[in-house]
């Protein structure tokens, strides 16, 4: 009867004693999420079904974050669809510009997702909430429409891959590097259709923000979900914050895994993923002299307070390289405000950086930092595909916030050690 944490959560939501990998099950969802790109299609499909209302107005969350504040008339029309649907359906969790955030930074912060939940979202990075010990996965607009109507979704129970991180996390190495290490090892489809379970002594000590970062990019290895066993660090985060009761699940000691990968991170360097796949990782010291035109610090991957503190700490008292544009984007309004109170915004602005309102913006080539032909960007975002941030002949390199900040000062890709010495 042994099960992994993923299997236990799915079994509980399918009203079953036990589920096994490969089994097709219908599960009750705790939350359904859409944004200003995916929700318009979902709303259209929802209305075709002919249901009068969503399954629960407190459990359908709409966050306009990709093109917001609206970049043009068309995106304004899309955001308007969300606003009007939210009003018509009396949704309690619709987040307007000025009160919003990037969805995957916002939902945990607001206590809308918690340990043991099943969450589906029409956004591939919905896997972020696995950091809290939830089962959370991305779907398309039609699946979201059906889930908004029924409060359920059918899923295939995934096999699990266990990642074990041993050793001591060196300075300047964070959650981003742990997940890039796994993606580099597994490849961009190495965990396709599977669950990635993060374990080991390094994980047990890992901060909540770094856990969000690592779970966020499970999809970049093709995974269905990424998951962290909830512990004291999780408890500290969700206590007093979570709006619903939550349950801590853990994998049985004899749970079955499709595979196990073990990494020793002692002595590890920050990693950089080269164009045009997140699996193309290299230690930062071996990157060579790669000149950059733009640096982006932010996104649902690395737009949290820990990330901005790290970056600001390196930037403080220094100047962004004259040939580099540094764009810093906090994940939510609360992160924005806290950055203001801690003086981080001043550090960035004094250094010559842009400090933006929360938005997905440049990460997906939406707005707020699009690249011209031949331009190169180093970003703390999650994808470096062809044309991801602009022209199809532009390039994106991925890294952690410390490497991003250090490189913005140097003008080329470099580790933080090179800047503080």
């Amino acid at each position, binding site marked *: 009867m042994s099960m992994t944490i993923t299997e236990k959560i799915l079994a509980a939501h399918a009203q079953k004693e036990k589920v096994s990998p490969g089994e097709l099950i219908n599960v009750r969802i705790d939350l359904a999420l859409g944004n200003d790109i995916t929700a318009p299609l979902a709303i259209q499909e929802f209305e075709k079904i002919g249901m009068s209302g969503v399954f629960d107005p407190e459990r359908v969350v709409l966050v306009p974050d990709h093109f917001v504040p609206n970049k043009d008339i068309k995106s304004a029309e899309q955001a308007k669809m969300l606003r009007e649907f939210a009003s018509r359906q009396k949704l309690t969790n619709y987040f307007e510009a000025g009160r919003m955030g990037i969805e995957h930074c916002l939902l945990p912060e607001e206590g809308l997702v918690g340990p043991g939940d099943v969450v589906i979202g029409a956004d591939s990075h919905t896997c972020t909430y696995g950091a809290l010990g939830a089962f959370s996965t991305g779907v398309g607009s039609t699946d979201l429409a059906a889930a908004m109507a029924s409060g359920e979704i059918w899923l295939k129970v995934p096999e699990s891959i266990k990642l074990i991180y041993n050793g001591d996390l060196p300075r300047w190495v964070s959650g981003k590097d742990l997940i890039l290490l796994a993606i580099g090892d597994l490849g961009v489809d190495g965990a396709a259709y599977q669950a990635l379970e993060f374990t080991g002594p390094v994980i047990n000590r890992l901060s909540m923000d770094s856990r969000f970062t690592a779970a966020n990019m499970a999809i970049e290895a093709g995974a269905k979900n990424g998951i962290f066993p909830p512990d004291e660090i999780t408890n500290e985060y969700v206590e007093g914050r979570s709006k619903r009761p939550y349950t801590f699940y853990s994998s049985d000691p004899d749970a079955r895994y499709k595979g196990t990968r073990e990494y020793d991170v002692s002595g590890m360097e920050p990693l950089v993923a080269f164009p045009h796949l997140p699996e193309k990782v290299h230690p930062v010291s071996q990157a060579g002299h790669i000149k950059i035109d733009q640096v982006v610090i932010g996104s649902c991957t690395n737009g949290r307070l820990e990330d901005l503190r790290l970056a600001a700490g390196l930037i403080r008292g220094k100047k962004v390289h004259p040939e580099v544009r540094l764009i810093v984007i906090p994940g939510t309004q609360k992160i924005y405000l806290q950055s203001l109170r801690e003086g981080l915004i001043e550090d960035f602005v004094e250094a010559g950086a842009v400090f933006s309102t929360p938005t997905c913006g440049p990460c997906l*080539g939406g707005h707020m930092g699009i690249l011209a032909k031949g331009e190169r960007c180093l970003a703390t975002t999650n994808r470096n595909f062809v044309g991801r941030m602009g022209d199809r002949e532009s390039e994106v390199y991925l890294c952690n916030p410390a490497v991003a900040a250090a490189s913005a000062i140097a003008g080329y890709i470099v580790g933080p050690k090179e800047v503080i010495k």
Partner: protein
Amino acid sequence: MKFQGKAWRFGDDIDTDAIIPARYLNTSDPAELALHCMEDADPQFSSKVSKGDIIVAGKNFGSGSSREHAPLAIKTSGVSCVIASSFARIFYRNAFNIGLLILESPDAAVNIRQGDLVEVDTDQGVIKNLTSSKDYKFIPVPPFMQQIIAAGGLINYLKLRKEH
């Protein structure tokens, strides 16, 4: 279901940003999306493709974002089906949900050449390369999933079932 089409070849890991770049996602109008289908993999694709043509690609087709605009752009551009070695998970669900037929066949994906004339028989589970006279098998699409495709997607399929 049986149909023929000309093959357009693409490589491995064709992501949804290549299929429909986010710069066009300020609309969900299928006709407008189709004008930019596969643009970052082949900028001229939408002007070259003809109704009934078939996309043939390597592993992990449709990786990346959850945008349903990707299969929608492919379907509306006139492509009859996508044959690949493997598909990314979210794209797989989305394709059936919006009524785009996709077939997993590593053999066909490796051997079909650009411009080959290809016939697909979904009932028999056979892809025939009429240019090279070679056959490739795929696991037949179950009848209910073929009905989803025929109805034009999951929501239309559910509505049809409700009406009958």
